[in-house]
């Protein structure tokens, strides 16, 4: 595959200018930081609490912002012009994800510093965070392609927020409601499980399930995204 860095960078620069002039959306990056600050003041130091702020960053920054960026291009009929340019599908989709990726990493680092989370194994956790960022951004792209307007983005992101960010905390009720077993398979739950196993003496085998599942989620969502993208390209909008 032949990716033009110049094209992707051009989209990144354009997105940055638009984003910085759109306070309604860009101000949401503060929410996870405020929550992280709040928890750090309370002085609780458990994995569950650290991951409250971390998962919030993923759904409010990675997914929501990405969804808005894509939905706005659709609403304003600019996405179609990009599709009709010489830029390829990967160039457009990667280019359109770069700004959100950078912001996600920055805010994630900020929240972790604020809550004082110190992972059992930093390198492994960094890789897991990078993979998770890709997952949540791709979900955002998918939802943005489905949403018709920017207004709709805020609504359509809610289920993701509840499922992925709040979901893992419902695992406490699994005994009572066996349906909740599916929560085990969510990438956010897997991330927390990974973090917990890293706290103790972990074996390489402990890494297989979380990394395998998160990667599987990424592949599934990416395939869905490309399918929806191609449909949008064909469809008369």
């Amino acid at each position, binding site marked *: 595959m032949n990716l033009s860095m110049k094209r992707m960078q051009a989209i990144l*620069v*354009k997105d940055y200018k638009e984003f910085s002039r759109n306070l309604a959306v860009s101000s949401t990056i503060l929410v996870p930081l405020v929550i992280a600050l709040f928890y750090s003041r309370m002085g609780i130091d458990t994995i569950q609490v650290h991951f409250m702020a971390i998962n919030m960053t993923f759904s409010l920054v990675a997914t929501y912002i990405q969804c808005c960026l894509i939905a706005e291009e659709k609403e304003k009929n600019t996405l179609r012009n990009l599709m009709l*340019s*010489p830029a390829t599908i990967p160039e457009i989709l990667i280019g359109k994800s770069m700004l959100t990726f950078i912001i996600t990493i920055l805010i994630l680092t900020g929240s972790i510093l604020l809550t004082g989370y110190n992972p059992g194994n930093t390198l492994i956790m960094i890789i897991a965070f990078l993979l998770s960022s890709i997952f949540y951004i791709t979900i955002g792209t998918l939802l943005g392609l489905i949403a018709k307007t920017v207004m709709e983005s805020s609504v359509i992101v809610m289920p993701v927020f509840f499922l992925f960010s709040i979901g893992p905390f419902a695992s406490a009720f699994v005994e009572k409601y066996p349906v909740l077993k599916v929560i085990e398979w969510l990438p956010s739950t897997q991330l927390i499980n990974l973090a917990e196993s890293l706290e103790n003496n972990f074996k390489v085998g402990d890494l297989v399930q979380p990394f395998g599942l998160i990667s599987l989620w990424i592949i599934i969502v990416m395939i869905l995204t490309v399918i929806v993208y191609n449909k949008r390209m*064909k469809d008369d909008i």
Partner: protein
Amino acid sequence: MGEVIKVNHLQKKFKSEYALQDVSFEIEKGEIFGFLGPSGSGKTTTIKILTGQLSPTNGDVKVFKQDISFLKSPEARQRLGILSDNSGLYDRLTIEENLDLYRKIYNLKENSVKKSLEFVNLYSDRKKHINKLSKGMRQRVLLARTILHQPDLLFLDEPTSALDPVNKFHIYEGLRRLNAEGTTVFLTTHDMAEADTLCNRIAFLNNGKICAIGTPKELKKQYADDTLTVELKNGQQETISKGATDANKMFDWMQKNLVERVSTNEPSLGEIFVQVTGRKLV
């Protein structure tokens, strides 16, 4: 020989309705080709098929002598310019920033933005934000972006519908210049005067069928009636046949030195359209 577009018995069906029933035409390199028809006649659908945004239901379409699958390639995209009827701009960016994105996507030199903006008479406004512009100005920015890479083949879907006469005039001038530099233009419009001044060749589209095609001159000749209008010096106006039957009348007037003006009775394109389709063009 030098054909850029060749369409043979093209049909397009949406669900159960045919938007295009039978469309055939060719466009040669260097032409400004006008596609005229009332709204709903299938102009946009044709452009979408010719630019790879819709697949035809039936028929044969060649662009740049290649099958339409070629239209999806970056090489084809580099040679095409497409201004659709609902193209958008980035509202929070300036005119220049909007074009700069596309300059990088098309991998063009820095001065292409300036050249393109001068073309639509907007260079001095380049620092203005899109959300501060009038509809006509936005339309010109869109055109500037569409021609930024000097495409070989330019599709314009009703490009002047939002413009006042002065701006229309600017755009016509610009399009003629671009055409002189080698760009073939495919233009849809429902403005007969526009087609008449701008296009080398015209096709009339009605209900998804081409009902007449030719140069404006040919069409007018074809549908002209065989009469002349003679204005006499005494203010009288007479309509006579071009043929031998009225030759004596003419001879008589000329001998008496009565003739002020003689004109052929060419129909306007709008009148031809009504004649061909029995339908007014709106």
